[in-house]
């Protein structure tokens, strides 16, 4: 028995803030965004929980705020997963079509998928996602090979895995609120699902989600995610560079970054100076605008260079014709799209959420949580993971203390 209405909390535990979005799922066909909760993040560094109590307090405050805002109790949580511990690899498998008439059967598909997913992981690592790529039947791409004729069936998966302890920490923080985690979705996939269109994914696109502590990226081609990754560098590092370079506090550096930071250097006049506070109070001082831009542009370019390096041979400008799509809180930096275009050699743009998204949630900082709910609606989690759709039955709910 599938529940008709379910309240899902999409939770992103970020380095700078915790965001919770409550979606009302009706019969699995539509989702209504009914509540939002935000809280400054503590106890989280580069997407990793380092202080369980502090992180729990922040996450639970955001969850409570979202529930109050929505006026409902959250049934289960879709949790975004990020952090430098996440890694991925590609695994392929080939089987010969078993039937005498060379028609692919469901068992052939099942066998090739099992083989492609069966890869031993090092101790302490566990799978977060199996992202299946299109099948190949005798070398040709096919979406659904069952009942098609051929000899060799190939399947390939991009497997994302992470450190067990870090994943468990995040889940336990949510469970401390006594809400089960129904799905774990990496941030880059969530953002990518929200910021790209099917055409973008078919033509090839790189989605880069610039957070405060981490930068998540995903490469799309042939309609699905080919490669994902996380770089443990984000907008916070720009702030840190400014604080060190200009010898100001973190707060002052953050304000300078937001007001004068740029992804590329455009100021030619080296004598052009800007005020730290602009209120002419005691302690207010001037800094060269060129220097600020130089610091932020250098770090921005470095982040993109690292991403490009991690993409490696999988990325080629001619196979990513939809270009680079930027999102995340740090993508609000002026001129960041120019910097990305310069590094990747393809057009770059700031991601635009679909038109149905409320004006208050159209900021780049909400792309991950929106993407989590989008995943829940479209059921991409199941298809990406090759898992089975779960249902919440009456007796399961009745005898579950967790919800």
């Amino acid at each position, binding site marked *: 028995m599938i529940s008709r209405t379910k309240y899902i909390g999409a939770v992103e535990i970020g380095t700078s803030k915790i965001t919770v979005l409550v979606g009302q799922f009706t019969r699995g066909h539509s989702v209504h965004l009914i509540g939002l909760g935000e809280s400054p993040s503590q106890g989280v560094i580069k997407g990793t929980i380092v202080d369980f109590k502090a992180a729990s307090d922040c996450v639970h405050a955001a969850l409570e705020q979202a529930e109050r805002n929505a006026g409902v109790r959250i049934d289960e949580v879709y949790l975004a997963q990020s952090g430098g511990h996440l890694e991925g690899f590609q695994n392929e498998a080939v089987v010969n079509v078993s039937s005498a008439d060379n028609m692919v059967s469901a068992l052939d598909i099942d066998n090739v998928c099992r083989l492609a997913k069966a890869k031993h992981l090092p101790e302490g690592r566990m799978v977060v996602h199996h992202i299946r790529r299109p099948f190949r039947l005798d070398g040709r791409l096919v979406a659904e090979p069952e009942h098609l004729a051929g000899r060799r069936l190939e399947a390939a998966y991009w*497997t994302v895995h992470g450190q067990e302890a870090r994943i468990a920490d995040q889940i336990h923080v949510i469970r401390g609120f006594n809400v089960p985690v129904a799905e774990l979705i990496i941030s880059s996939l969530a953002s990518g699902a929200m910021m790209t269109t099917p055409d973008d994914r078919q033509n090839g696109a790189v989605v880069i989600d610039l957070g405060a502590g981490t930068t998540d990226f995903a490469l799309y081609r042939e309609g699905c995610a080919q490669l994902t990754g996380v770089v443990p560098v984000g907008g916070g590092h720009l702030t840190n560079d400014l604080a060190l370079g200009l010898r100001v506090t973190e707060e002052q550096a953050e304000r300078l970054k937001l007001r004068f930071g740029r992804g590329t250097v455009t100021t030619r006049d080296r004598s052009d100076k800007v005020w730290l506070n602009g209120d002419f109070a005691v302690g207010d001082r001037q800094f060269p605008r060129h220097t600020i831009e130089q610091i932020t542009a250098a770090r921005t370019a470095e982040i993109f260079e690292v991403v490009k390096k991690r993409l490696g041979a999988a990325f080629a400008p001619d196979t990513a014709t939809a270009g680079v799509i930027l999102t995340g809180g740090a993508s609000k930096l002026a001129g960041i799209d120019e910097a990305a275009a310069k590094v990747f050699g393809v057009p770059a743009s700031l991601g635009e959420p679909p038109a149905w998204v409320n004006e208050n949630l159209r900021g780049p900082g909400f792309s991950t949580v929106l993407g989590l709910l989008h995943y829940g609606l479209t059921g991409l989690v199941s298809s990406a993971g090759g898992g089975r759709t779960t249902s919440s039955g009456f007796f399961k709910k009745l005898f579950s203390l967790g919800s």
Partner: protein
Amino acid sequence: MNPPAINLPPPRSWRDLPQPVKPRAMSREGRRRRIFALARTVGLTGVVLAACWGGMEMWATLQTNPGRLVAPADGTPVRGLVVRTDGTLDETWVRETLALPPQAALLALDLAALQHRLLGSGQVEVAELTRLLPDRLGVTLHERVPVGRILAQSGDSAPRTWLMARDGTVFAGVGLTPEALEQLPYLDGVRLKAAGTGLAPIEGATAAAVADLLAAARTGVPALARGFRVVSLAQFATNGVIVVKSAAVQEIIFDARESFPRQVELLDLALAKVAEARGPFGPAGPMASVNLAVGGSHNQVPVSLGLAVNGGTTSARRTLPAPTAADAYFPSPANLAQHDL
């Protein structure tokens, strides 16, 4: 033959992680939610168990001694009636009509039979009976509205007044005051048939025509309508006319095939013209006849003026034998032709 399935152990997934955490690791809100969930689970389990236990008990009782289940339900006697009606019937009449045996059990009552008893009176159009637990019977009545009176005699018994409703039902008329009865004209020339202890309904079209005529008269000429004494249907079947005898006009002939409001309007106009022609010092007294059934266009209405009762100079032409007294045309019930059944 199907190929063998490949069984390789899948790598560990995040779904293999045990999610529950110890209460100590929970926040206050988390603990509160956990207690709520626990209480809900215990409560629902209790409800399910209680329902199962109740079902098993009932099953066992039904198997061994079904009387134990039925007897308590049947045992509660009716302690009162709650009567609601839109007419004149009262609780006493309902009680007498239902004739409930003393100590009749509420749940053992045959409501359909009781309803049939109430509907046996023609005055009751709709009757609804409901059990008002624990011990009262609710009776809601919708009564028929009488249109006219019928004086009828059955055998050697004394003549009796009956009432006719718009749908032709003839009923005794319980609870109506003499003043209310006086407002109703007598019906004449009606064919009656006995049915049981009462009378069979009159043909619906006839009764409806009378009801429509009276309603139009009460709306258009209320003062004249109050003086309607007899409505004769003797020529209704043959000529389609209804003859009304009233205080102001000895005979008003209506055409049942034409619009009654229009005829009432013409009647009002004719009476006004006659009053104007007579003048303030002219002859008084009832007119002999107004025939509204002559002439298709109704542009002209034949009117016969009677002689003034008090004599005096009169120029009115007598078209009908002058009545010696107005009472001859306004029969009392005793003067009406009685219908032998």
